[in-house]
Structure formats: C-alpha cells, structure tokens
C-alpha cells in the first residue's frame, strides 16, 4: 500500500521547516564574520584594488571629457587626484598669493588657492601630451579623436559619480575617491548631505584619515557654515596628522598647511584668537606654507585683535 502523495509532501515540508529552524542561526553565524564583504570583495579579493584604481582613472577620463593619455603616454598621466578638484577655468582677479597674504579679510577665498594656480599650470603642461602629428595617419586621426584639454563644468561633474561610487565599493580604503566625490557633491552639485554621508562612509573604512576629516571640516564650514563643528573636525584632523605624519622624514606638510590655516580661520570666526594663533604657529613650525610671511602677518593681526579685546 503506497502512502498518499499529500502526506509525503506534508512530511517533507515539516522536515524542511525543522531543518530551516536549526540551520538559520548557524547560517547567520557564518555570515556575521563577513558582514561587510559583498560579492565583489569575495570574488575579486585583492584584485579589486586594481579595478578600483581603474575605475578612478575612468572618472579622471570623464573629468577630461575623454582627453586622456593612453598607456603609451603614461609619463604624462596624472600622478595624483589634485587636478580633479581644480576649477574648470583659471579664476580671474588678483593673484592667489596676494589673497593668501590677507587671509583674515578673505574668508570666502579658498586657502589652497595659494597652490591652485601653480598646480593648474603643472597639470596643463602635463596634459599637453599630444605634440605635433608625426605623419598623415596621425594628423588625420586627430580629426576624429578628442584633442582639447577641458575639465567638466556647469554641473557636468556629476558624470564622475558612477565611477567614483564603483571605485569606493571596490576599494573602500582609497581615500582620494571619497574626497573627490565629496568635493563635487558639496561644491557644484548642491548635495552636501550626500557628500557628508559619503565622507562618513569613507571615515568608517579609514578612521585614521586626516584627509577625510579635512574634507568633512570643509563641508561643515563652507556648506553648512558651522564654524564650531568644522573647528572640531579640523582639530581632530590635526591630531591624526600629528600621530601619523609628524615623525616621518618627509611629512605631508601641504595637508598640514590646509588643516591649520582652516582651523585658524574657524577659531578666529568664533573669537578664539589664541587657538587660531596656536594653529598658525604649528604651520609655521613645520614650514607648511610656501609663504610663511603671509602666515606671520596673520599671526600679528590676530595678536593685535586679541590685545584689542574685541572678544
């Protein structure tokens, strides 16, 4: 006598439910150790860093609207991402150096304007990799290829975002990715909340990064106009910088310059002249600015203000 099919089905379902109840806690335990791992990380392993780098380069290609050195022109390839946070066209007006000499009167100006002009010239020189055509094939081929060096502007910087997102997903420890994406999100795309969330994601993966804290401080200062929070974040950035860089033979003084000048600015805006002077003195002690005389002048101005008892 054969048992009815319905009975067998019910039995199988019961066994399945029992097994599921037994196995579920174990399955959760298996995955908990790798909670942050996603498919790409599991499949690609360390190879994902190479892919992440490629995605970042792709973002750079998009930033230049396709005008980019090939693997055969690697000597001209950008070596860092600094140019990706440069303005699209040179800013008219007084020399950046002159602005930097009067920092207390130019709170809206970017302190790194000091370096922008030089960096822009360097980048322009590096990107003139084409040279004159050597034969008719090359000359005619250039009629089809993209041969002008431009940077994305007028909100088109959004086109970088997919590649930066992908790069961050593949290699969460690549700090530049977060900085470049956050820079454009907050500056030109009007998305400070998304920029903050992305920077915090970066900080979760790289808790000791002073570069990310510097960028987060800029976001608070420039987008939210919250000098107090910005000052706190830059203080943390300065602490991290001191822990990681101070004892190195060649410390990252450019970053220190940015942190301290900005910190001084935030402290000054809150009337804490003493702390502002302290921050600038750190920059002076580490020779963090190519124009120490501008910093000295600022320290003097702050001392006068402090002695005058403005606050």
């Amino acid at each position, binding site marked *: 006598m054969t048992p009815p099919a319905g009975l067998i089905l019910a039995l199988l379902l019961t066994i399945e439910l029992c097994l599921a109840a037994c196995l579920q806690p174990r399955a959760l335990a298996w995955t908990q150790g790798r909670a942050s791992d996603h498919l790409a990380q599991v499949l690609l392993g360390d190879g994902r860093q190479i892919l992440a780098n490629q995605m970042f380069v792709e973002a750079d290609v*998009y930033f230049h*609207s*396709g005008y980019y050195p*090939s693997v*055969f022109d690697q000597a001209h390839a950008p070596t860092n991402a600094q140019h990706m946070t440069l303005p699209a066209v040179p800013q008219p007006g007084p020399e950046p150096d002159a602005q930097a000499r009067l920092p207390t009167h130019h709170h809206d100006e970017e302190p790194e304007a000091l370096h922008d002009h030089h960096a822009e010239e360097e980048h322009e020189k590096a990107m003139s990799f084409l040279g004159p055509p*050597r*034969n008719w*094939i*090359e000359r*005619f*081929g250039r*009629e*089809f*290829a*993209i041969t002008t060096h431009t940077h994305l502007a007028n*909100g088109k910087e*959004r*086109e970088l*975002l*997919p*590649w930066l*997102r992908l790069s961050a997903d593949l290699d969460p420890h690549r700090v530049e990715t977060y900085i470049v*994406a956050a820079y454009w*999100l907050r500056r030109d*795309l009007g*998305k400070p909340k*998304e920029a903050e969330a*992305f920077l915090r994601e970066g900080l979760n993966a790289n808790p000791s990064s002073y570069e990310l804290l510097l960028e987060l401080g800029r976001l608070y200062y420039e987008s939210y106009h919250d000098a107090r929070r910005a000052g706190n974040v830059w203080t943390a950035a300065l602490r991290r910088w001191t822990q990681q860089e101070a004892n190195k033979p060649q410390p990252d003084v450019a970053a220190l310059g940015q942190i301290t000048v900005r910190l001084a600015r935030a402290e000054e805006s809150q009337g804490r002249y003493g702390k502002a002077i302290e921050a600038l003195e750190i920059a002076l002690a580490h020779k963090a600015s190519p124009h120490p005389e501008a910093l000295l002048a600022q320290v003097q101005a702050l001392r006068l203000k402090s002695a005058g008892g403005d606050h």
Partner: protein
Amino acid sequence: MNAIFCLAGIVIKELYRRKDFYVLFVITAVITLLMGTVTFFHQAGIVRYLKDICLLLIWVSSLVIAIVTTARQIPAECESRTILPLLAKPVSRWQVVAGKFTGCWLACGLALVVFYLFFGAVCAAKEGRLPLAQYFQAFWLQWAMLAVVVSLALLGSVVFSAPSANATICFSVVAGILLVGAYLEKLAALQPPILAWLLTLLYFTIPHLEWFYAVRERLVFDQDLIAWGDCALATAYAAAYVGVILCAAWLLFRRKPLTA
C-alpha cells in the same frame, strides 16, 4: 549585379533567421536598461556612463555579428556543397565574393540601425535631446569600419579552413588594431632597427580602425560634429581597404579547390 544582390538577399535572410542578432540585442538592451535604473547619490541627469556602456555593447555586438556571420559564409557553402550548383548557375567566383560581402555588410547595417534606434531612444529618454547628426556620423563611420571587418573575415574564410579559427583571428586582429594600431610607430621608436622597421611598415599598412572607434568617444563625451569632408575621406579610406582586401579574397578564392 543581379546575382550579387540575390546572394546578398540570402545572407540577410540568414541573419534574421538565426538567433545571434536577437540574443545580442536582448543582452545589450537588458544591460543598458538595468544600468539606467541605477541612481548615484540621488543625482539626476547622469547619462554618460550609460551611453558609454550601451555604445560599447553595440560595438562588441556589431563586431560579433559581422565576424561570425561572414566567417561561416564560404566554408558553409563548401561544406554543404551548395557552392557547386551556385557556381554552375553560372555565377562567377568574383560575384560570390562580392555577393557575400554585400549581404554581410547590409546585414550588419540593418543590425546597426536597430541598435542605434535603441541607443537614441535611451539617450533621448535620459537626456531629453536627440543630436541626430552626431548619431548619423557615428552610425555611418561604424558601418564603414564594419565593411573593412567584413572584408577581412571574408578573406579569412578563404584562407583558413575552419570558421572558428577565422573568427578568432579576425577578433584578435581587430582588437589589436583598435588597441595599439595608433601607437605602433611610437612602439617602433623603442625597438631595435629591424623590429622598428617592421612595426613602422605595419603601422602604414593596417587599416586604422581606431579612427572610427574614436567617434564612439565623441558621442559619449558630447563633442562637436566631425567635419563632413573628413567623414567622406574616412569612408573613402575604408572603401579603398575593402577593395584591396576583396580583390585579395577573390584572387585566393579563384584558385581554391572547392571539394576536399
């Protein structure tokens, strides 16, 4: 001429009877539409990555259609021995070569029209604009490039015994030209004299398909139109290569024994 178009018609019918085109089109459409649904940082208007991916898929698909369709034409006729009654019609061997080329090239053109219609629809939906002149240039130059690829595959089908070997070699040659064709002379400068001479010779001999591929990038990055005169010159350049390669294919096919 009639014989050539009759042969071409058969090739076109073969394309829509086979599943290759449909599979490639569905894959392209599904991947593009899926990618189009992804949002990044709640930012609207991001479209270049989508154009980039879609055009890349169109390029890959069109190359696959061109090479695979062409590579099996003459070997299939020889293997099934239908080439013998065909040549007894009488249809000359030159007409067979020209007919097969015309059929494959037109079939590629038809496939390309469908692909570009899809691409245009996706871009118009995402960007809200339709730069028809740019799309036409991209389509035309890609089709002209495919003419060279089809003729190369046809030559390969006369030289190599198996369509698979022919297809693999054609893919390698086309990929090689697209990737390093423009830099052969630069590479030559770094090599010892004999190798340098060979690379330079290769540089001036190969069809520079990378010119045509650059149009894809122009479309992705919203560049200006290419001068129409340059388009015409590039078309003439492709036509010249097609002529030379088809002549070579005919010369080889003329002496080729049709039965093993």
